């Protein structure tokens, strides 16, 4: 099966600018996650969608971050305005409903977008 696609791979912006990331999950996967991974730390969940509804956005800084998943397929994550501390890798992942896959609850990540805010 095709993997989770993300674009762009790299992005450099100045602080206070805006940026958007795109994710196309594995076909048929109802659940989509956006994670933020700061250098030296583990991935942190920002937002989780099930189909096109939000399941969990408790860790999303809503004053500057927004995300949508139109038609329950592709998703975009936006930051406006960006801060220096937003520099991180933004990872998109997808899974069947509830995370249950063929090998248990591991879901599939994309390669990520590395954001540098200067």
């Amino acid at each position, binding site marked *: 099966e095709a993997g989770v696609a993300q674009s762009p791979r790299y992005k450099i912006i100045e602080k206070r600018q805006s940026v958007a990331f795109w994710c196309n999950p594995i076909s048929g996967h109802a*659940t989509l996650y956006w994670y933020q991974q700061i250098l*030296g730390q*583990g991935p942190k*969940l920002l937002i*989780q969608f099930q189909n096109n509804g939000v399941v969990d956005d408790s860790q999303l800084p809503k004053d500057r971050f927004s995300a949508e998943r139109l038609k329950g397929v592709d998703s975009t994550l936006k930051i406006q305005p960006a801060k220096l501390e937003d520099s991180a890798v933004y*990872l998109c992942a997808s899974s069947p409903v*509830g*995370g249950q896959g063929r*090998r248990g*609850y591991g879901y599939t990540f994309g390669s990520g977008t590395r954001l540098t805010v200067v």
Partner: protein
Amino acid sequence: DQQVKQNSPSLSVQEGRISILNCDYTNSMFDYFLWYKKYPAEGPTFLISISSIKDKNEDGRFTVFLNKSAKHLSLHIVPSQPGDSAVYFCAARFAGNTGKLIFGQGTTLQVKP
């Protein structure tokens, strides 16, 4: 509040020997534990998981052990190979249907030829 902790930032082992990566957790509501492996410039890839009702799961060279009373799990890689050199993340899943995972900080494993 770090619910999943990997206290060793790095580990170096010789090829052919055993690698043991450790992880501690604090929340009793986790029902599954997983290990992910990450190479530079790639996303994490799922490696192996274990249910909270088991104490061991094996898949080839990889074995995960769970000690619920100590809230501790470990990943054993035997024998270690240079291609195993990567960052390993421990993750824990909250019981329920959301599939939300909480990750540890990661341990960088270097396997020397």
